């Protein structure tokens, strides 16, 4: 079976730190920044466990601010 690897980018200035992507992620890839905040004072989301990402788009689908882009590759 081909292995799927994914990665996401979060537009950190647009992110409002609502945590919905973190809840929606089936592989616990995402977390909110524990200390750092963006210009508007929100703890933005980031890939805390990038190896786990499978590029399923769940985070991007539930993101109310459309700040997540998803990338996916198939490894043989």
């Amino acid at each position, binding site marked *: 079976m081909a292995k799927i*690897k*994914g*990665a996401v*980018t979060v*537009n950190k200035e*647009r992110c*409002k*730190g*609502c*945590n*919905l992507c973190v*809840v*929606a992620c089936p592989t616990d890839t995402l977390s909110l920044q524990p200390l750092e905040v963006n210009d508007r004072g*929100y703890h933005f989301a980031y*890939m805390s466990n*990038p190896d786990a*990402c499978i*590029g*399923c*788009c*769940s985070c*991007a*689908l*539930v*993101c*109310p*601010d*459309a*700040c*997540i*882009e*998803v*990338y*996916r*590759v198939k*490894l043989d």
Partner: protein
Amino acid sequence: MKPEEIIDPANRVYARPRLLTEVNTHYCPGCSHGVVHRIIAELLDEMGLEDRAVGVAPVGCAVFAYNYIDVDWVEAAHGRAPAVATALSRLSPENLVFTYQGDGDLAAIGTAETIHAANRGENIAIIFINNAIYGMTGGQMAPTTLIGQRTATTPYGRRVDLNGHPLNITNLLAQLPGTCYVTRQSVHTAPAVRKAKNAIKKAFENAMAKKGTSVVEIVSTCNSGWKMTPAQANEWMATHMTEHYPLGDLKNE
């Protein structure tokens, strides 16, 4: 493989829809409005309706929808979006006319306009965001507020003897002969978002095919009005709101 190697335009499977403007929305973090805006922007792009879509914005939190989705919009007076949409769709029948309304707009002040537009079978798509509260004005009780639900004006919970029953207007609209497609969806999980997208797509197709009025209710959350975190609000919505507003198609002709 490192994330930096994967992040390449050739491998991109999901990007911000082209029709969403670069403006940051004024919605609270975790608001369902943002998700529905994104679905609409994606659909109008995919269906190639960018130049023919006319939205009618409501009064309520979504009043600035015209700033966020880059198509033509008309801002209607409070609750009068279906009446304005009637004129738009009759005067330019080649266009896709849709209204985007909250529960305070559609189910309270605009009840008459909504019911009569649906009863006349106007060729419009009505997108109805039901979060059971007046979000914009500070979380007061709406007609759709659930029994026992605490709001700013029902601090001990909504009482039937004092405030009446929650109004299930989507069920009401499904009874009318003018509606062709009436459905209730939610956007709290990724599968639900996919289903909601299909429902709105069908509503847009019906409006373009002149089949009658389509109503898509999105059972939503208002985490700041409900005084919860966005994740808690989604959970509360899934357990409590869907009891009174069960998800699924009510009419599909």
